[in-house]
């Protein structure tokens, strides 16, 4: 299969957007047709053939579902999700706070550093936080570990605070979704349909990955949002162009434009993103109104590079932290907020359509450090 790197150059052609579509297909090899794809086998037949002593595992007792007592909503879920992995970290922090003697206690600061780094906050942002904290603790003559913990939460939360509202005041409002492969762009779009007020339309701009269009169409079926698409391999800018025109014509409130996942290191793919953006802006001045970058909460320090490069090429207006329901602590959000200065606007914590929430810096930080 050919690479995704074909970028259709020439603004004159993409001005009308549509004709550009065919060009992208050039250079892609024709898929090999293979007829004998699905072979259904009668279930009974297989069971007999494969049944073997010991082959079937005893159903394991499923441990009690992790559920934070009394804590409802996404925060409770988030917290329960974080609990397992957090236990050791919180235990350390607990111990450190309990044993805290004075500001000169180097062991305490080392523990704080370790906790932050273990949460993917990164060395630079960790050092900055610890430095600030140490200084303030000295100035305010803080002697109790508890006070210090509160201060830690406060500092981290302040770093993360930013505007979380999405600008949906336009008609249509165009939201462009960007991000590296596998960070959850398409899933998040499905969730955004429920999250945002008014009517929504989806644009299947991931024309590259196998079945990405189908995936978005399923979300369209689930949410009732119409999906604008072209064939696989079509120019993403052409799809965006069509979608903006249709959204204007149909008077929808929000148009959500999906794009193919791309590594931020691929310059020509990033340039393609810029082109999608330009085509949208030409059809609707001022659009896209939001460019949202999905970052997988399990991402380490490379998240910084992702945020930096996508911001440079696509003008990111906000970050959506996805898959926060895992073991991931999402500390990379702190690093991004600190070093790239792009606000974290939303968090996605589960698989269901309603699992999308505005980012709350304080709650996030509390969840990061546990309920001491």
């Amino acid at each position, binding site marked *: 299969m050919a690479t995704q790197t074909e970028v259709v150059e020439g603004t004159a052609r993409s001005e009308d957007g549509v004709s550009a579509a065919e060009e992208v297909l050039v250079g892609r090899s024709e898929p090999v047709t*293979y007829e004998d794809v699905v*072979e259904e086998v009668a279930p009974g037949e297989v069971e007999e053939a494969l049944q073997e002593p010991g082959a079937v595992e005893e159903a394991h007792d499923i441990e009690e579902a992790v559920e934070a007592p009394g804590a409802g909503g996404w925060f409770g879920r988030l917290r329960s999700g974080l609990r397992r992995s957090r236990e050791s970290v919180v235990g350390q922090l607990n111990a450190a706070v309990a044993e805290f003697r004075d500001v000169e206690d180097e062991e305490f600061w080392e523990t704080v550093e370790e906790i932050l780094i273990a949460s993917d906050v990164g060395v630079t942002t960790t050092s900055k936080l610890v430095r600030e904290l140490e200084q303030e603790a000295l100035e305010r003559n803080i002697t109790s570990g508890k006070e210090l913990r509160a201060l830690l939460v406060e500092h981290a939360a302040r770093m993360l605070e930013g505007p979380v509202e999405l600008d949906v005041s336009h008609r249509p409002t165009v939201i462009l979704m960007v991000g590296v492969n596998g960070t959850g762009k398409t899933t998040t779009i499905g969730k955004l349909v429920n999250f945002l007020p008014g009517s929504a339309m989806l644009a299947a701009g991931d024309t590259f990955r196998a*079945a*990405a269009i189908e995936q978005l169409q399923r979300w369209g079926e689930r949410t009732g949002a119409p999906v604008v698409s072209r064939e696989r391999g079509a120019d993403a800018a052409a799809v965006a162009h069509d979608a903006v025109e249709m959204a204007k014509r149909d008077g929808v409130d929000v148009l959500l434009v999906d794009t193919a996942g791309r590594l931020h290191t691929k310059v020509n793919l990033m340039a393609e993103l810029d082109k999608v953006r330009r085509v949208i802006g030409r059809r609707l001045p001022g659009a896209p109104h939001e460019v949202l970058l999905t970052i997988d909460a399990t991402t380490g320090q490379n998240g910084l590079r992702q945020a930096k490069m996508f911001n440079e090429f696509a003008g990111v207006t906000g970050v959506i932290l996805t898959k926060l329901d895992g*073991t991931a602590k999402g500390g990379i959000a702190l690093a991004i907020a600190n070093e790239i200065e792009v606000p974290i606007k939303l968090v996605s914590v589960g698989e269901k359509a309603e699992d999308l929430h505005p980012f709350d810096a304080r709650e996030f930080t509390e969840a990061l450090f546990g309920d001491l």
Partner: protein
Amino acid sequence: MNAALDGVRGSGNLTEDKVKKVTREIRLALLEADVNYAVVKEFVGNVRERATGAEVSKALSPGQQVVKIVNEELAKLMGGTSHKLTFASRPPTVVMLAGLNGHGKTTAAGKLALFVRKLGKNPYLVACDTYRPAAIDQLQQIGLELGVPVYAAGTEPSPEEIAERGIKAAADGGYDFVIVDTAGRQVVDLEMMEEIKRVRGAARPHSVLLVLDVVTGQTAVEVAQAFQEYADFDGMILTKLDGDARGGAALSVVSVTGRPIRFASEGEKMSEFDYFYPDRMAGRILGMGDVLTLIEKAEQQLDREEAEADAKRMMSGKFTFEDFLKQMQMLKRMGPLSGLLGMIPGLNKQLQGTQIDDRMLGRVEAMVTSMTPQEQRNPKLLQNASRVRRVARGAGTTQQEVQKLVKQFNEMQKMMRQIGKGGVPKMPRMPF
């Protein structure tokens, strides 16, 4: 970093102080590369222990020496056991993929299929991701592009049922390599983790591969441990290596699970998939490409400088038994002498008919090492009969043998001097 690496070159052994200073920097570099902090702690501790007191190569500064040790240890750690694919004696070989959402399982399934086809296998894909919308379509489309059949039974049957039936279908169809794609899952979702255990039980795979995105951060350790517990994977596929992530997760996961990384997946093309090379990854994680290149160059430079100095001394006729011994030991490292000399153009003809006995080398070496350093440096001393007697006794040989060696050595010295002056002398008889 460079500041920490500066210092006097080749200053004997590495002091604790020096090692500490550099390992602090290494620790930061590894943390920035997303190596789990607990793994970093242990790793740096080990390196500190190994490096302290180690001899510094003449070519390197102590700092560079530590980096070199770190790099070697990293590669060693990730090297693990054999990474090559093995196939079941009774086909089909069944490989199951498992991992978090979005780490590239389905793409890796397609890539692996293409990879084994190039090895002469007949692959077959089984689509067990009944959760993500259109995941099955994705695998089918990939199969279509590659011309690899895909078993799909929709999203109604359980994944374990699909796995069983799919493997059966593959065996019936005469396919000898089955790749079972599974849904992405989060490790805190215990229901899903139990499911992967059941799928494993149903598929009874020969190999389970954890698919891991190279950008994964500190959680890689917990993720790997959970998948080890529920899916008992025996190796990994590291994905999205074409990005610029340093990939410390690879080190974390290998060190806590003891499972090797088997494959590296990079790029959008289905063919961009290969066995994993630990040495390349070590340099990437350390992120000290420049320093590592420098170290390599410095060592090459030293080798060359030494060789040049030796050659110069030889040509000036100041060739001693000490040098002779060094050359001989170098020769021995290069393999059998007869083969080596045969490779030199021109020499081959002259050597025809002469028997070169490698064991002779050993005898010569014994004689040279039986000389005192003074004698080695100044062969003229060996005109003294009692010295010759002592050397012969030391080497377990006759005085005649020693005298012969000294004589031949003198001839060689003369010859070297002549070459140094530009003359081409007649080849003297070699001492062996």
